[in-house]
């Protein structure tokens, strides 16, 4: 008991320290690195809370993918950073920001402290009905059966985010290839890693998707892994990002949502409700949705990292 308290206590102190450092540090690149470490620490905290699904997602998205996204943003902002750092906000703005941030923190603290004990939970209902889905992982059952509409909307939000990124494309490059042309040594270390790692990564991703039915895992974690493998190959110069005008690319991007919606609407005549699964077919349908979503998520996340098109198709 004391040992566990020691570990949890150190973890809390570390998380708070990294969080404060991330805010306090002046250099934005250092702040981004701090934020990625913060994500990994949070993943450890989720592990300690026995929420392995959340831990996997936090490590993949919070630590990994968001880190890469923010590093690219920090590198892009570097030329203007010294100018912005020179503009110190006035005393009034500082005071206003402090009051606002303080109020939000205090409100959050009050809300957390006034939560009823024991906390309201739907866990018994999930445990009672999970048999009807054929799944073993309660998280997957909630995400894809009991609260499937939330997951569907999440997938749509992800595509909206990509569309928002693409709207930043300069007119003359519309439909072109996102990201710079990576000119990496074809015999260098990065190319070596990009040849060695993807087979392992793809196997692990499919495994994570497959065990997601019964154990922690699922389409988001698997999709992030696939995206990472694809980005590795692109950044090592082994393959090029596809032009965004390609029909197959747009098809893959919406495939997850389309399959999700199709199965959802098929539920209306077959099972009596939108997103309801016919008796006995829940598990295969859920796995079909997860597999299609994994591909869509992988491509969407990778293209989010690559950013808007920066060159025409043939350059």
């Amino acid at each position: 008991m004391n040992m566990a308290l020691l570990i949890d206590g150190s973890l809390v102190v570390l998380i708070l320290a990294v969080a404060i450092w991330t805010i306090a540090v002046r250099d934005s690149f250092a702040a981004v690195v701090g934020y990625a470490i913060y994500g990994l620490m949070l993943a450890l905290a989720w592990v300690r809370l026995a929420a392995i699904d959340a831990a996997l997602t936090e490590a993949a998205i919070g630590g990994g993918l968001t880190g890469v996204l923010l590093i690219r943003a920090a590198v892009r902002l570097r030329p203007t950073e010294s100018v912005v750092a020179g503009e110190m906000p006035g005393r009034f703005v500082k005071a206003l920001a402090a009051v606002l941030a303080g109020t939000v923190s205090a409100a959050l603290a009050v809300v957390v402290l006034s939560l009823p004990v024991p906390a309201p939970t739907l866990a018994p209902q999930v445990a009672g009905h999970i048999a009807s889905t054929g799944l073993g992982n309660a998280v997957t059952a909630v995400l894809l059966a009991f609260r499937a509409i939330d997951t569907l909307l999440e997938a749509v939000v992800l595509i909206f985010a990509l569309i928002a990124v693409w709207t930043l494309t300069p007119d003359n490059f519309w439909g072109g290839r996102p990201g710079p042309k990576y000119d990496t040594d074809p015999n260098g270390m990065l190319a070596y890693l990009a040849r060695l790692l993807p087979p392992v990564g793809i196997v692990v991703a499919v495994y994570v998707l497959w065990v997601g039915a019964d154990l922690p895992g699922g389409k988001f974690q698997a999709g992030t892994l696939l995206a990472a493998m694809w980005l590795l190959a692109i950044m090592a110069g082994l393959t090029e990002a596809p032009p965004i005008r390609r029909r197959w690319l747009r098809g893959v991007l919406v495939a997850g949502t389309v399959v999700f919606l199709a199965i959802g609407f098929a539920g209306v005549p077959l099972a009596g409700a939108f997103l309801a699964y016919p008796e006995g077919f829940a598990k295969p349908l859920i796995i079909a949705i997860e597999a299609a979503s994994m591909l869509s998520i992988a491509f969407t996340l990778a293209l989010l990292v690559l950013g808007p098109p920066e060159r025409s198709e043939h350059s």
Partner: protein
Amino acid sequence: MSLLLDLWTIVAVSAGVFFFLAGTVGLLRFPDTLTRLHALTKADNLGLGLVVLGLLPRVSSPLAGLKLVCVWLLVMLAGAIGSQLIARVARRSGPPA
């Protein structure tokens, strides 16, 4: 037998933690990027390796043990290549120190 295995776990994990500590001290104290990378690799390779070796007798199934060893191998691969890439950037951009 179980006492021996416990002893093995304690010794190996302690040794692994020592290498993590040494690597961290090196990262904080060494003068330039290349020597700091050198210190870090000890934590990745030896530190994690010894921790994994120490935990191997405690796994519930051979598959879990295999996963542990795979984690170690992947971290070594990523660590080695990551430090190569960092070292190259450091040599190109900074003055040789």
